[in-house]
């Protein structure tokens, strides 16, 4: 179940971290404030977490903290865009974006010499979706244009990218937050991507490639 909760006590037991660590990570904003869910129990108020999300996050922090300081980690994990400028060749070389994606990007939005973080993100999103075979090249252009036009309004906030197809007609949506999406029977939900997660992924990749 997606919305299963885990209590703080069980979480610490399961992951083997201490209260101090958990509070430190919270202070450094490695764990988002809205994951701390307060509920009344018979012992008074207790804190719960969304189980799946917090377990993934703690694994990630444990993984990364060997080679990055907590402040760097906070940068990687925060949903706000990083301040990055990457050259086109570097993106290709580090295999963050493929040739084909780059061509599409050039056709849809023109090809800049230097990619800022948002452009990198658009290209990376497209690359992901193309690689999974969910969308075609033409649809990719729609995606890029939607992102270029509307994503700046969402930057820094949690948002989702939803791609729908009905009778072969593609439709691209950007949704703020993580709400529920319902479709009519004829429509097919092609892909639904949590952009915050992708940003984390991308930041980690950029950091690996020595770009940041």
């Amino acid at each position, binding site marked *: 179940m997606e919305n299963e909760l885990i209590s*703080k*006590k069980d979480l610490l*037991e399961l992951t083997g971290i*201490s*209260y*101090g*660590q*958990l*509070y*430190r990570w*919270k*202070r450094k904003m490695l764990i988002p404030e809205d994951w701390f869910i307060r509920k009344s129990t018979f*012992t*008074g*108020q207790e804190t719960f977490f969304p189980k799946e999300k917090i377990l993934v996050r703690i694994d990630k922090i444990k993984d990364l903290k060997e080679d990055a300081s907590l402040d760097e980690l906070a940068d990687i994990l925060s949903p706000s865009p990083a301040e990055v400028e990457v050259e086109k060749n570097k993106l290709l070389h580090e295999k963050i974006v493929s040739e084909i994606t780059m061509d599409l990007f050039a056709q849809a939005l023109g090809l800049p010499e230097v990619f800022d973080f948002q452009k990198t993100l658009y290209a990376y999103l497209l690359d992901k979706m193309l690689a999974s075979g969910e969308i075609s090249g033409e649809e990719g252009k729609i995606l890029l244009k939607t992102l270029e036009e509307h994503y700046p309004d969402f930057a820094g906030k949690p948002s989702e990218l939803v791609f729908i197809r009905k009778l072969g007609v593609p439709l691209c949506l950007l949704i703020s937050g993580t709400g529920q999406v319902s479709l009519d029977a004829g429509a097919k939900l092609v892909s639904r991507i949590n952009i915050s997660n992708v940003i984390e992924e991308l930041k980690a990749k950029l950091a690996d490639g020595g770009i940041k």
Partner: protein
Amino acid sequence: MEQKSKKDLRINGIGSSAGGHFDSVQINGKGDINGDLECTDLEINGLGFVRGNVKSNRTRISGKSTIAGNLAGKEVIIDGMSEITGGLSGDNIENRGMLKVSKDCGSETFTSHGGFTIGGLLNAGSIEINIYGPCKAKEVGGEKIQIRDGGTFGIGKFIGSLFQGWPLKTILTVDTIEGDDIYLECTTAKIVRGGNVKIGKGCQIDLVEYKNTFQKDGFSDIRINETRKL
């Protein structure tokens, strides 16, 4: 053209400002700042009122101040009285007066030699509290938590013998305390959870949960309803 350097703001006497970016901000007297404030140094030596968020590297409040917003900084020293209606965050927070924070308070180190009220979570790597006045927080969490009785001043004891209800109840009241190393004195809490827990004089605790060690001093005024090893 790039600005050469940021200006200083100084209010001596009575004055007001709309806020903005400054290098050093000093209020001696009575000053109102009606907006967000960003500066390197903030010193309030009289009466200060900020209607907005404050971001300052070094903050020192020696008089009385009200901040209707958040206060974020590295070094925060409160020698007088300060009320913050938002949250307080910094690297080092030192309270030697009366501090009131309506939301969460977070820092690497938090030291208090006075009284405070924190409406949310007090979260710090190292928390050292010497109780000299009423201390209150909803939750306390961190790595190392040390809470000690500051003792009553001689004059306070004398007045206490004349009037009832004085001195003010010098205890820490809190719902939950969670940390790795905890030492408590004069603390009333519902739940205390931690790795190593040591309970000293004057504690009233409903439930203690510990992982490694638990110790209790032999004072008769300690009341612990339940102790559990996890």
